[in-house]
């Protein structure tokens, strides 16, 4: 784990590590506010939009079907007064579609961010100091010296090595 105070140095380090063969998935940057990387440095592909749309369609569809079925199967004997309403059902479709997208976005956020996934408590999490970006690299034993070299030459401060079982 290494602390950086300047984004340009951090980006250089990441690029160098990638060139040395470390996978982007093994690298994590910890900071108190989001760091805006340029494209191609530490991209994390996201499926959130797709999930949101899918959630919207599912929830909207289910709710519409439910409301439709309830109205059509309602055993109220009316003297011709319609029980089903196209436009009314339409409003409910719209709202539940929106609700579905909200819930899907939130749920997927919890999953994608890793907040709700099972955590591996052996992997150390750095305490982030204000103004500092901490880069954590996971690698196996033989690569450690090379990684250390890259980090130091990129201008990292406070590099720490932690053993994980």
């Amino acid at each position: 784990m290494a602390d950086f105070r300047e984004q340009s140095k951090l980006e250089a380090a990441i690029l160098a590590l990638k060139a040395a063969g470390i996978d982007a998935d093994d690298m994590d940057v910890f900071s108190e506010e989001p760091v805006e990387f340029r494209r191609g440095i530490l991209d994390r592909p996201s499926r959130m939009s797709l999930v949101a749309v899918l959630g919207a369609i599912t929830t909207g569809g289910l709710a519409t079907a439910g409301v439709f079925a309830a109205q059509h199967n309602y055993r109220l004997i009316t003297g011709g007064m319609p029980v089903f309403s196209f436009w009314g059902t339409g409003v409910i479709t719209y709202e539940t579609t929106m609700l579905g997208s909200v819930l899907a976005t939130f749920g997927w956020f919890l999953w994608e961010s890793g907040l709700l996934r099972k955590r591996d408590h052996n992997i150390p999490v750095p305490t982030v100091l204000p103004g500092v970006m901490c880069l954590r690299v996971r690698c196996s034993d033989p690569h450690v010296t090379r990684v250390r070299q890259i980090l130091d030459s990129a201008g990292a401060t406070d590099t720490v090595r932690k053993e994980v079982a």
Partner: protein
Amino acid sequence: MATSAPELPYAKIREDLFRPLSGGSARYWITICAALSIVILGLVAWSIQVRDGMGVTGLNRPVFWGFYIVDFVFWIGISHAGTLISAILRLTDAAWRKPVTRAAEAITVFCLMIGGMFPIIHLGRSWLFYWLIPYPNPRLLWPNFRSPLLWDLVAILTYVTGSVIYLYLPLIPDMAQLGEHNVPWRRRLYRILSLGWTGSDREWHALERAMKLMACIILAIAVSVHTVVSWDFAMSIAPMWHSTIFGPYFVVGAIFSGIAALLLVMGTLRRALGLELYLTKHHFNNLSKLLLLMSLLWFYFTFAEYQTVWYGNEPSEMAVFASKIRGPYAPFFWTMVFCNFVVPFILLGIKKLRTITTAMIASVCVLIGMWLERYLIVAPTLGNPRMTSAAGVYVPTWIEFAITAATFSGMIVLYLLFSKLFPIIAVWEFKPHPVEEE
């Protein structure tokens, strides 16, 4: 114009924004106690209403809807503050929104919670409100999905869910930072609520994506919610309610009152929490310009609506129109026009007069004016029904005043509690990126 962020030292920002969270001044405790006592008064009033019947209010035939529906529309309207500021400004990447978003989102959530109480409070048999919820039951009964009140239910539930999530998401990183708080129960609270946020770039990335999506969605929801609320009136055939303009009219009015509420809250927070460096003249200037814009839009819609009615000269509509312009409701009507249009136009339109104080004054006027606008939509139409033999006048009682006052106090209580538990400015959004320090 840049915000003052780069000029402030990093540590100072952190300290300033987290300081209100520990301890409370005497002023704070006095305010919260006073507000709570009014809330209790409102609860007492409501329990009297539930025990004795709706007759303890001023409602009658033909004015079957009164203060409660006015309050309902008013509070749901104000809830559009957060949506506009947070969502639209987030989507347009306006940097000046940063210190303002959380305050706005909090307003939204609390206003929705309060506004959502009124469909229950106004019921003749409040304890049976759950019959409007479609749930399977042994009597095989379902609610009527043709009724605009059902659409209200779905829309407001959706909006509440959306805004709570929209408020919660950006709170997570701040709560993670507060995990080191000195008070133990608070530490536990923040740790649990922040879900183990570590600040990794994966988490940040997911958060930013989620916020962008939520901004679009919440915008779509907000427009639809107040349109659906307006359809409670527009879908009926009562004179001067059955108007197609109500949908957009209500949305515009909601955004208008929402910005006024936000201005008021921001001005109060600025003084109470000492946030002069963060909520600057620049922010108030921009919000004031927005308020002025909405005032003009509101005037346009109102003018169009009344002009159409007047020119059509339809007898049952003209009865309502006359009662508003010249009749018993005239004082309220002209006060509303003065508060909603004249005051903002003068105070905010003339650059020299546009200060933080005048913005606050204009906001208070707008809030009064918008409440009156809702009142003028409900009472005159109901008081002048098509059958003139059934005309009536609405005189509210102390019960309705107490419950209305209790909702305003309730808002204050909720907001005070919120400001003590969570930083009112989104710290992670506001703090400058470390690289700017060089």
